[in-house]
Each structure stands twice: as structure tokens, then as C-alpha cells.
């Protein structure tokens, strides 16, 4: 299995399995077309920790803890655990922050954009088009010499932070401590809305561990796939997302979860210009940071603390998105989602043009 995952068929095999798993997670309780959504799940975790108080999107999604621990275990076993960091962490935090803002304007990360398409939500087409444009802008900066600088090797212990954090989140999910004022919190769980919809804990965790392991071995990346295709004409990772979409689509058909159309799609809106621009922002931020949000979780498990910092930026971005009315809902974009998207684009363009590393 490991040899296949490391081979040229690796991303396609991993993508197919992850696609099936994602559709099954919806069947088992996750919200519609949200079997796996790295942005939405990070947002739900921010809510569960009380960083935002949008009551319908609060749950400590164990899938993401599984991503980190699965990747950590796989990296340890195959001797790829390599703590490193120090490549413009503050800027990476900002990129994570705005990648999340863009994701919540669209209502999903690249993973969910593909899963929405595989579930018949045609609003995802504008999002995926935006993603491709955002990645293309990022490639332009890369060709001009954009770089956040080299990371350095860190002590072995530096990479334990994210796996331990993941275990801590799982502990909070199981223990559900209640000692806040008025007998609620500090951990919050939705009793209605998307946050209340989830597959059984043990299944979500197992799925997360499996995906973490598969993605660590195969380097499955939903942004790198588009980047390598456009920049290098390299289809290696792209085959991963094609098989991901097809596998999720077929599984959705079998389970009766394929519902084609634009209107009334689960956790989606029909303002196509903002579906598009939200994902331009996300795609650009992910490309400048070096990978999709799933890949960031995987790399953080391998000991990449810059990826960990990016995730913290996403977590804080999610909190701001809801506290500042930036996040969209089924009704459309949030009150301040449009200016936030524009500010995010300005930030990413500034980073892309100001961080040049001329290595000859």
C-alpha cells in the first residue's frame, strides 16, 4: 500500500478513498456536501472553543485532530518527521487568516468546493473557477521570485505542539467541560444548524486518521494540484482531485445524495461573483503559503511549524469572520464580507509583490 501511495498512482488512489470517505461521512451525519471541509471544520472548532459565538457552527470536529495525528504517525513511521520553521511566520498567520475569510465568503475550502460539485451544487463552479484564478495569480508571483524565505530545522520537540494540541481538542470533545459563567462553556456545541450535524465521534476520528495518513504518504493537495498543472504541466497531483471528485460523485449517486442545481443547496449561496472572488482570495493565499488547508494540517503533523502558524491564522480568521459579520450564509454574503474580501486581496497582493527572494 505504501509503495502505491508513494508512486505516480498515489494521489489518485488517495483522492479516490478520501472522496468515498467524505460522501460516507455525510451519510453518517455530517452536513450536506461537508464530509470533509477543512475551513468549515476549523470554523466549527473556533466556535466550540468560544472564539466566536455563532451558535449554529460550534463543534470540535475530530476529523481535523485525526488529520494531524494521522500525518504525525505516518511521518514518524516513514522517517519523514522533520521539525522545521521560521519562514515568515507572522505573514503566514495573515495568509491563513485571509484564506479563511475567503473560504467563508464562498462557504468552503477547496476540498469542499470539489465536494459541493460532486454533490450537484453548481454554485461550486464559480468557486472552483475563482480558485484556479487565485492559484494562477500566485504562480505569477512565484515566477517573479516570490518567497517567504527558508525555514530552519527545529529541535525534535518543536513538532510535538500540533499533535498534542490535537489530542487536547479530542480530550475536550470527550470530557465536554462545563464551568463557564451561567453553566455554559468554555466549550460550546451547537444544538441546531450545521454544527449539530456530525457523524459519530469514533467514525469521524477514524476517517480523519485515515485521511491524514493517506494524504501524508501521497502528498494529496487540492491547491498544489492546480498549481502544478498550470505552472509545470504536471498532472501528478491533479489526478488526485479528479479521482476525489469522481469517487465522491459516484458514492453520492449510490447513496442518493446527488442533488443537482443552484438553488437550495446545503450551506451555499448563489451570489456567484462572491463565490468566485472569495475563492480567488483563498486560492491566492493558499498558493503563497504553499498548499491547501488540508495540506497545512498534514505538514503541521510532519513538524512544519510554519504550517501550524498558518492554521492558527485560519482559526483566528474564522473567529473574526463570524464576530465581524464577514462570513456568508445560505442567504448570501455577510454584511461586511465584501470589504473583507477586498482587504484580503490587497494583503495578498502586497505579500506577493513585496516578498522577493532573488536566488541566482
Amino acid at each position, binding site marked *: 500500500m505504501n509503495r502505491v501511495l508513494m508512486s505516480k498512482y498515489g494521489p489518485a488512489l488517495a483522492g479516490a478513498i478520501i472522496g468515498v470517505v467524505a460522501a460516507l461521512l455525510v451519510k453518517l451525519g455530517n452536513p450536506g456536501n461537508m464530509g470533509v471541509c477543512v475551513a468549515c471544520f476549523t470554523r466549527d472548532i473556533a466556535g466550540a472553543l468560544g472564539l466566536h459565538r455563532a451558535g449554529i457552527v460550534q463543534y470540535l470536529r475530530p476529523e481535523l485532530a485525526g488529520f494531524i495525528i494521522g500525518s504525525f504517525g505516518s511521518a514518524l513511521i516513514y522517517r519523514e518527521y522533520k521539525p522545521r520553521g521560521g519562514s515568515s511566520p507572522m505573514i503566514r498567520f495573515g495568509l491563513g487568516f485571509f484564506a479563511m475569510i475567503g473560504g467563508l465568503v464562498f462557504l468552503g475550502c477547496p476540498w469542499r468546493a470539489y465536494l459541493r460539485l460532486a454533490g450537484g451544487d453548481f454554485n461550486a463552479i464559480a468557486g472552483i473557477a475563482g480558485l484556479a484564478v487565485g492559484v494562477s495569480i500566485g504562480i505569477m508571483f512565484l*515566477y517573479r521570485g516570490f518567497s517567504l524565505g527558508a525555514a530552519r530545522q527545529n529541535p525534535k520537540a518543536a513538532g510535538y505542539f500540533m499533535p498534542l494540541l490535537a489530542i487536547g481538542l479530542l480530550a475536550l470533545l470527550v470530557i465536554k467541560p462545563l464551568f463557564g459563567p451561567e453553566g455554559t462553556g468554555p466549550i460550546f456545541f451547537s444544538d441546531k444548524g450545521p454544527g449539530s450535524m456530525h457523524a459519530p465521534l469514533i467514525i469521524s476520528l477514524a476517517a480523519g486518521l485515515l485521511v491524514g495518513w493517506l494524504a501524508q504518504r501521497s502528498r494529496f493537495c487540492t491547491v498544489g494540484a492546480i498549481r502544478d498543472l498550470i505552472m509545470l*504541466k504536471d498532472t501528478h497531483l491533479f489526478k488526485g482531485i479528479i479521482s476525489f471528485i469522481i469517487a465522491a460523485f459516484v458514492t453520492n449517486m449510490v447513496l442518493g445524495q446527488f442533488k443537482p442545481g443552484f438553488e437550495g443547496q446545503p450551506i451555499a449561496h448563489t451570489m456567484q461573483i462572491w463565490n468566485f472572488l472569495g475563492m480567488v482570495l483563498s486560492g491566492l493565499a493558499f498558493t503563497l503559503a504553499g498548499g491547501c488547508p488540508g495540506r497545512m494540517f498534514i505538514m503541521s503533523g510532519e513538524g512544519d511549524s510554519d504550517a501550524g502558524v498558518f492554521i492558527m491564522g485560519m482559526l483566528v480568521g474564522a473567529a473574526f469572520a463570524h464576530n465581524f459579520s464577514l462570513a456568508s450564509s445560505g442567504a448570501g454574503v455577510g454584511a461586511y464580507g465584501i470589504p473583507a474580501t477586498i482587504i484580503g486581496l490587497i494583503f495578498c497582493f502586497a505579500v506577493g509583490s513585496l516578498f522577493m527572494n532573488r536566488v541566482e
Partner: protein
Amino acid sequence: METKTVDARGFSCPQPVVMTKKVLDKLSGGRVEVLVDTVTSRENVLRFGRNAGWKGDFEETENGFKVVLEK
């Protein structure tokens, strides 16, 4: 034969590939050594080099890998 060296240690993908591409694009042949520090970068640089028509191999170094591309 002249050997060009690209030091891509510490850079995360896709930068090692971009740095390699910039050097390969200027050469019609020769030997290029690319220093990387993760398995992922090693695979990516090797795959890129081979797709570009170069022969590729690698050896382990103290803190990573030296990818050797020849044409």
C-alpha cells in the same frame, strides 16, 4: 563538465522546483545538483527533472538529500 548547485534547503514546495526550473531552463545539458531537506521536495524536484528530459538520481546527505540531474 561544470556542475551547477541549487541550494533549496529550507524552502517548501513548490519553491525548490521553481528554483530548479530557473536553472534548467538556461541549460541545454550538464550536471545540476539540487540540495533539499525533505522527501517531498526530493520527489518533486526529481519528477520535474525527469519530466523535463533530464536523468535524475539522489543521494542522502547529512541533513537531507542531494538530487543530481544530468543531461
